[in-house]
């Protein structure tokens, strides 16, 4: 089933190569239909998950040896941690296919790339083999570059494409170096890229601390660059700023989560000592993401740049969840990943719609759009509010869990300081830029340029409704996912449990309560 | 000091460097090519000397091949230079820079 989910888009991409380029409607129909089918399959997977039999804690497992001499096999399977990501990816892919109608040139190539990207993303998340895990990601990454370069818009297109390409390549390569090092830690003959077996092996035979530190650093910064960890984040807002909508949705929403997923799936369970050594650094960098990028977002006049920066800020929460070295935090991180996937896709999708409706993303030139575009406006309001952590949306739950986890986490002598700063960033700074955007874009009198915009037709609403519904559904019933995450996280991650920082701050005086 | 192997070697080393210098400082392709012959000869000298002092004729045999190869190379090279000269009326290296950077 998983293999079908992965292969369906890839096969469809092959199929599309055979369709003559003039038949754009056929091409679009195939792309949308296939992604819809894929989404339904993924949803089926989601609902069949609980009942399915598990092998080593993974379900829907499929395994085909591929390069036995190197211990590489095609090995897919899901547990609670990647299930949500796979489903989210499939849903976002469908939404992205839906909004691709905005593409006016070379539709055929665009849709092929989109499908390839989808297949790659889903494959990366479903893989339980390190090598495939990495390959699928690369496989999805390249279409991203091409799509941004080819169909992107804006003056800075070339520079942005260049930047995103170089950045992500370097990040991926650093991570690859780390992964290979990890692979080599086992004695010759036993080496395997099988994540499950590696995890088990390294739990029993821990790697030397010095090696752990090195590998963790490589993975942290390699994956970190992929996820726009501060200060390697500048590619993200710019890249998304110029990217075509569907690409931005898929990349910011789904593909970017690959790095975070890698940290959770690989770095944390296999390199516990390295994690302990590096998370204090990571915790500081999170602040860079959440606070600093939040401030940067406050200054943006371009809606896409604002969303891009805020998306950078959001992944900071996932990083903090990872840095917390606490199961609550990690659960939260996974939830943030899924939630932000929907949210980023939604935001970029809406922003893309606005751009095509009004011809500009400059917020100073727009205003009062809520009157003109009630549906899109409302959806955008919801997206922006979800972004600043309003309950009812999945993001809130994730961020809450992250903060709870980080508060108790034993990663640093002053966890409370980070959480306080992060909460400030998430509650106040996020609200500042989100409301500012609403104020400029949607509220206030309607400007001339906004006056001619048309609201979305029913069909154009489908992707947005779907994404919003997913966000709200998970926000209201988080246990749909957290229960699954919880079980898997407990099974794979072992943190020094129970160590909680004492209240720590010494008492100067205790005033008797006046009563 | 009786003349030993190292004497020959030093001569060959100096000759080798002379040839190299020629390649670097002369601007006429033909002269450069002659300098290269000088370098090959230097290597030959070393080979013969080694052959003698190692009591092993393999070195001399390689010289034999080197000379043959050099001859063939010279033939081809000069033909090439002539062909180029016919086209460009020059053998000056500074005129042979239609491809660069």
């Amino acid at each position: 089933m998983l293999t079908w989910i992965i292969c369906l888009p890839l096969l469809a991409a092959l199929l599309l190569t055979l369709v003559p380029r003039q038949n754009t409607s056929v091409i679009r129909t195939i792309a949308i239909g296939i992604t819809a089918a894929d989404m339904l399959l993924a949803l089926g997977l989601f609902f069949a998950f609980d009942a399915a039999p598990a092998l080593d804690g993974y379900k829907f497992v499929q395994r085909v040896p591929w390069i036995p001499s190197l211990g590489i096999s095609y090995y897919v399977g899901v547990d609670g941690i990647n299930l949500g990501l796979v489903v989210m990816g499939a849903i976002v892919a469908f939404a992205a296919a839906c909004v691709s109608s905005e593409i006016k040139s070379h539709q055929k190539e665009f849709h092929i790339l989109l499908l390839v990207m989808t297949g790659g993303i889903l494959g990366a998340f479903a893989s339980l083999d390190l090598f495939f895990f990495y390959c699928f990601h690369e496989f999805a990454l390249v279409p991203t570059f091409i799509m941004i370069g080819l169909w992107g818009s804006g003056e800075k297109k070339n520079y942005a494409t260049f930047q995103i390409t170089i950045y992500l390549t370097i990040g991926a390569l650093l991570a690859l170096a780390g992964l290979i090092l990890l692979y080599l830690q086992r004695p010759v003959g036993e080496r395997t890229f099988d994540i499950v077996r590696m995890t088990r092996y390294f739990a029993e035979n821990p790697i030397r601390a010095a090696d752990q530190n090195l590998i963790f650093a490589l993975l942290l910064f390699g994956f970190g660059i992929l996820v726009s960890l501060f200060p390697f984040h500048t590619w993200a807002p710019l890249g998304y700023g110029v990217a075509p909508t569907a690409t931005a949705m898929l990349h910011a929403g789904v593909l970017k989560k690959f790095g975070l997923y890698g940290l959770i799936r690989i770095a944390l369970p296999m390199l516990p000592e390295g994690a302990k050594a590096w998370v204090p650094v990571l915790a500081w960098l999170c602040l860079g993401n959440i606070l600093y990028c939040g401030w940067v977002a406050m200054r943006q006049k371009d809606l896409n740049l604002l969303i891009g920066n805020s998306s950078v800020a959001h992944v900071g929460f996932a990083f903090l969840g990872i840095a917390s070295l606490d199961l609550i935090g990690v659960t939260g991180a996974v939830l943030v990943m899924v939630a932000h996937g929907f949210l980023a896709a939604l935001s970029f999708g809406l922003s893309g719609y606005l751009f095509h409706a009004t011809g500009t993303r400059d917020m100073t030139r727009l205003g009062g759009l809520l009157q003109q575009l009630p549906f899109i406006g409302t959806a955008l309001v919801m997206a922006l509010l979800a972004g600043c952590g309003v309950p009812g949306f999945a993001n809130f739950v994730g961020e809450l869990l992250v903060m709870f986890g980080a508060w108790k986490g034993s990663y640093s002598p002053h966890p409370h300081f980070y959480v306080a700063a992060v909460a400030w960033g998430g509650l106040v700074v996020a609200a500042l830029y989100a409301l500012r955007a609403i104020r400029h874009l949607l509220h206030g009198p309607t400007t001339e340029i906004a006056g001619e915009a048309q609201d979305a037709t029913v069909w154009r609403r489908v992707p947005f409704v779907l994404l919003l519904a997913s966000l709200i559904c998970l926000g209201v019933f988080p246990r749909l996912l957290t229960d699954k995450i919880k079980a898997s996280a407990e099974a794979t991650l072992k943190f020094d449990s129970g160590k909680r920082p004492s209240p720590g701050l010494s008492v100067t005086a205790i005033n008797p309560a006046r009563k | 000091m009786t003349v030993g192997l190292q004497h020959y070697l030093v001569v060959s080393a100096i000759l080798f460097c002379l040839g190299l210098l020629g390649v670097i400082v002369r601007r006429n392709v033909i002269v450069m090519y002659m300098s290269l012959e000088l370098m090959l000869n230097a290597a030959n000298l070393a080979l013969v000397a080694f052959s003698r002092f190692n009591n092993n004729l393999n070195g001399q045999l390689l010289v034999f091949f080197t000379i043959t190869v050099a001859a063939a190379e010279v033939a081809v090279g000069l033909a090439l230079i002539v062909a180029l000269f016919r086209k460009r009326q020059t053998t000056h290296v500074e005129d042979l820079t239609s491809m660069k950077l």
Partner: protein
Amino acid sequence: MQDVFFYIFAALTLLCGVLVVANPFSRNPVTSAMFLVLTIVSMAGLFVLLHAFFLAAVQILVYAGAVMVLFLFVIMLLDLKEEQRRSCSSFSLVTGLAAVGAIGALVAATVWQPAQFAGLQPAAEGATKDLGELLFTRYLLPFEVVSLLLLVAMVGVILLSKKDLK
């Protein structure tokens, strides 16, 4: 006596070598070629001193005789004039000299270590028969390859220098 001859031939070789490369009096290619002939001939002397008689003969016959004649022939054919002193930048000269000097110094310093050749005594006699035997047994394969090489060279020269190809 042999040592004296060595020094004479060595000095001649080097002197002529210098004159090939950097003749202070003439930059005419013909001069260079002539000095190259001289170098080769004096080197043949060195070969003789090393008891490589056959090679000495080959050196003179093939190199001085055939190769250098080819060179001279081409130079004459092309009617090459004296190399013009076009913008000879002293920079390139100095850096070139420095690079070559460095290589020379390094190589010479390495080679000039009598200790490393302490055990070696002059022994081999470059007898034609021995050479021939080796050539047609052990080195038969390279010999054949060289024949192929010569064929290639022939074909190449014809291709490159025919005035008009059919």
